[in-house]
């Protein structure tokens, strides 16, 4: 019970800034509750055994000659199996709600992405060759990300903008196509609960919908050389008007300005 309370009431995570984050945090709370209950249970059993069954001074006899107990062993094979099965099914459900299984479930139907954005709040991450959906999804904002030692560059094809800082409007799905110029990097925004490696020679994609205005760190999470720790950028989530102002100020292609 204590474990359940801790699992539900102790928050170890940063703020939620993408549509995907609340779903993630739901999974986290479930895993944290189960984990805390199991851990406190085993810790309690070990400490209790060490105190209750410790050898008192003068005792020379052995313990009970208990070599096993089949029903008991079946019981504690079944319990972890059920727990693990539950976690597996539950995390599959979470993954599906995040949109991670979209290419598997829908096959070639990715052209209908915009129709399913209500249920699939996040387009998932993965290898670009598997998913070309973002090009045809009307609503999403396409951005091309280039990683290099030791910086990220964000290219907006719509206005031909190249920026070192990622600007995105709140509420609009973003589709990023990422590739590296040199070694493997990773794009990570802790407040979005999302991460995807940026690989040389193999474009990857990352889709998300920002929900909370603010400035969040973009962190490289794959060892990429001496200045790996300093390879950071910022994602600015702003309301659509501010984003449009920024966009108009920087867009090179005049016709795209609105």
């Amino acid at each position: 019970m204590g474990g359940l309370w801790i699992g539900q009431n102790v928050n170890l995570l940063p703020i939620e800034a993408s549509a995907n984050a609340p779903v993630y945090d739901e999974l986290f709370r479930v895993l944290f509750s189960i984990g805390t209950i199991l851990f406190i249970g085993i810790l309690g059993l070990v400490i209790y055994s060490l105190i209750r069954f410790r050898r008192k001074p003068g005792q020379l006899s052995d313990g009970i000659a208990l070599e096993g107990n089949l029903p008991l062993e079946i019981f504690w094979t079944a319990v972890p199996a059920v727990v693990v099965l539950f976690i597996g099914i539950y995390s599959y459900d979470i993954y599906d709600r995040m949109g991670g299984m979209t290419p598997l479930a829908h096959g070639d139907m990715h052209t209908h992405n915009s129709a399913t954005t209500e249920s699939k709040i996040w387009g998932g991450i993965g290898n670009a060759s598997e998913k070309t959906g973002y090009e045809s999804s009307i609503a999403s904002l396409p951005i091309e990300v280039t990683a290099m030692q030791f910086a990220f560059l964000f290219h907006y094809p719509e206005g031909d903008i190249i920026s070192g800082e990622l600007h995105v409007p709140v509420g609009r799905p973003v589709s990023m196509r990422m590739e590296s110029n040199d070694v493997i990097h990773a794009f990570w925004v802790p407040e979005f609960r999302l991460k995807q490696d940026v690989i040389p020679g193999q474009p990857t994609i990352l889709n998300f919908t920002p929900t909370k205005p603010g400035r969040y760190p973009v962190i490289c999470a794959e060892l990429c050389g001496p200045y790996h720790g300093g390879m950071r950028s910022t994602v600015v989530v702003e309301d659509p008007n501010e984003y449009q102002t920024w966009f108009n100020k920087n867009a090179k292609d005049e016709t795209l300005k609105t």
Partner: protein
Amino acid sequence: MSFSNLSLEKQSYKLQPSGWLRYLSFSLDHKVIGLQYLICGFIFYLIGGALASAIRIELTSPISDFMPREVYNQVLTLHGTVMIFLWIVPVVNGAFGNYLIPFYVGARDMAFPRLNAVAFWLIPPAGLMLISSYFITGAAESGWTAYPPLSITTPAAGQIIWILSVLLLGGSSIFGGINFIATILKLRRPGLKLMQLPMYCWAMLGTSILVVLSTPVLAGTLILLSFDIIANTGFFNPALGGNVIVYQHLFWFYSHPAVYIMVLPAFGLVSEILPIHCRKPLFGYSTMVYSIMAIVVLGLVVWAHHMFTSGTPPWMRLFFTIATSFIAVPTGIKFFNWVATLWGGKISLNSAVLFSCGFIVNFVLGGITGVALAQVPFDIHVHDTYFVVAHFHYIVYGGSVFVIFSAIYHWYPKFTGRLMNENLGRIHFLLTFIGFNLCFAPQHWLGLNGMPRRVAEYDPQFAFVNQLSSAGALLMAVSTLPFLWNAIRSLFNGQIAGDNPWNGLTPEWLTSSPPPVENWIGPAPLVKEPYAYGVNKKNQNLDLNESNESTSPNQ
């Protein structure tokens, strides 16, 4: 008889130096080789610990100020490589395996004594080469994973020396694995059935299968990587059409089973230590055996859970999530069985038991975070962060290293004939347990909140928690001192232990301490029930004097 070849070996024993010089010689005695592994491994543990201290000193401040960034990357690469390949793998396998397995199967030595000595003597030169690369050319900078293209673009000399060292250490590991399989399956004393073997034999059999199946894959991969570096081939170099993800698959095909190569023997050692000190049979012998074998099989098909953010396709993520989660089932059985072994026992709360119980607690936490990490959506946030750093230190330090200390306290009287000091041992345990948890528990929070791993500089908001973690590391470093003092002083001043201070029933206790060259003066004892502790049960089935003519070898 299976021992007939030993008459030849006897000749070579006579040529060995005696006294402490034995430990610097090309000895063929499995007990000498076991202790060579242990002492050599411990020296590398001190070096790896010094490297860890350097990392924790750098991380007490958010800026990179203690050492240059290139050196920091060299230090973290060496720390990982030394701790895995020169400390944990050689000690849980080589040291205790060589010392104990021949006793447990009732043999007078390992199946291939010369191969055994070669396997050990590959380690010191490989280790010295690796460490000296730091001073001569600069060590490898690409982490112990050596992912290309980073490992291809960083300075080549250090990377090539790293590859060469790991190849030699891998070779040593394979030689050891072949030797253990042969010894356990073919050198068993006639009359001793497989299901009567002490649990550590099963753990070593499973581990050796993993070693022999997966280490050659790592060797092949690293040879291809070295071609990419020195001969400009393009196996993993995207600039030449290579594929960097293939390297990751091949690397983790070895390096995930490597985790089980580090923890399965530790599981086996705990299964030997707890029953003796609890004065109870090991709970659920056969389920313990089956769960080891289940871990071996599952351990070979989980590697891609290290690659959930590498652009792996969804079906592959789903498969590896399920396979990885299910490892929790056989592992869980083992932990419940150990707790059941404690239950109702007459537990001596000595240093060996404290470290074993510390292992249970730490490993359960590491296992729980492990199941969480196996879930793709969870992993996508915390992959390559300090959450993962905390998780695997709970497995390999809180797990394997705690067991190594437990095993040293437990078998020290067998190695030397003297007991270690219990008060110093308890101080050692308390310092290690508190220091370890203070060092690594806060790192879970760091990872969840945005600190990636392998960084020399970080967001200033994480400074306090990092300092907390470094304080824990300091405590761990200090905890080594009472242990070292205890181990060295007890060698000369320790209480005389007698042959069997713990009243153990496994065969290594049924001879003198330290044991004679060929383990027993007379015939090897036949121990059919190595865990026959318990009221009214003790010694009932122990047949010390049965000679080997009446029973036929079992297969």
